[in-house]
């Protein structure tokens, strides 16, 4: 099962903010099986989508070499459900970050109407404490980011495009050779 809860990045400014969209589809089993009789995308997966958006915003600061994990959902409030056919617009803003973690605040809208506010904390896994912990297979991780079109819209604060990091290109080359 895939675990993509953002369909596409629509805006990405390194170290500042990111926007993305998630289209809710009835073909997603969870939409009608999670809470029978209440056909909507579960709030927990909307939070996951925002965490993917925010986590990649934080991770990009190190060219995706730091291992970033969602450490805490500080708050999450929703004003309505997201139904099949709805398009969720996600926006996250990096509030603060250091070598330990980062704080990201976000909002979601549907058709321009406020849908939710979500504040998240991310942690960087320390190299000394978490040895031999690989969160993603490097080539797969790069593929995921490409599928979400981050590199198509991503820019640095000065407006220059964000390039695919060299270590990711090398990982992709190794994957192609191997497969």
């Amino acid at each position, binding site marked *: 099962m895939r675990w993509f809860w953002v369909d596409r990045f629509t805006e990405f400014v390194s170290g500042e903010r990111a926007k993305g969209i998630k289209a809710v589809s009835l073909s997603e089993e969870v939409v009608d099986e999670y809470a029978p009789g209440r056909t909507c995308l579960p709030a927990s997966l909307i939070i996951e989508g925002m965490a993917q958006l925010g986590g990649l915003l934080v991770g990009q600061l190190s060219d995706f070499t730091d291992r970033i994990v969602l*450490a*805490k959902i*500080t*708050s999450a409030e929703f004003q309505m459900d997201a139904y099949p056919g709805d398009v969720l617009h996600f926006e996250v803003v990096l*509030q*603060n970050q*250091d070598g*330990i*973690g980062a*704080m990201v605040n976000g909002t979601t809208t549907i058709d321009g109407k406020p849908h939710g506010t979500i504040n998240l*904390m991310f*942690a960087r896994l320390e190299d000394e404490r978490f040895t031999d912990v690989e969160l993603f297979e490097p080539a797969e991780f790069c593929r995921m980011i490409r599928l979400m079109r981050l590199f198509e819209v991503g820019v640095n604060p000065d407006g220059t495009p964000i390039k695919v990091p060299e270590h990711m290109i090398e990982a992709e080359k190794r994957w192609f050779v191997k497969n």
Partner: protein
Amino acid sequence: MSVKPEVFSKVQEALVDALGVDDDEVTEEATMVGDLGAESIDFLDIVFKLEKAFDITIPRDELFPDDILTNAEYIDGGKVTDAGLAKLKERMPFADLTKFEQNPLVQDFGNLLTVKDLCKYVETKTA
């Protein structure tokens, strides 16, 4: 000595936001871990919020002296040594270590910090 109301108010707001506790739970005497339920990641959240609220920079080892508490030079048999206590006092002049000194178990240190300590720390940064 009590803390400045304007400092307490902002610290209280940061703690309510970060820990999901009610206003009235955040008293000056409340301990961060025991009374307010703060966990390790919450402290980072609190630091970020305080930095923003007061426009200050908080070096991480000033509020959470892990480097002292994990240094064999300052720990013996699970307790902080006299040298370690002196180092803690030097690092954290805003904290009241009187009670902790009576039985300075490292494991109890996490529950030492009170809301008042946090306010006093912020006051030293904004003075």
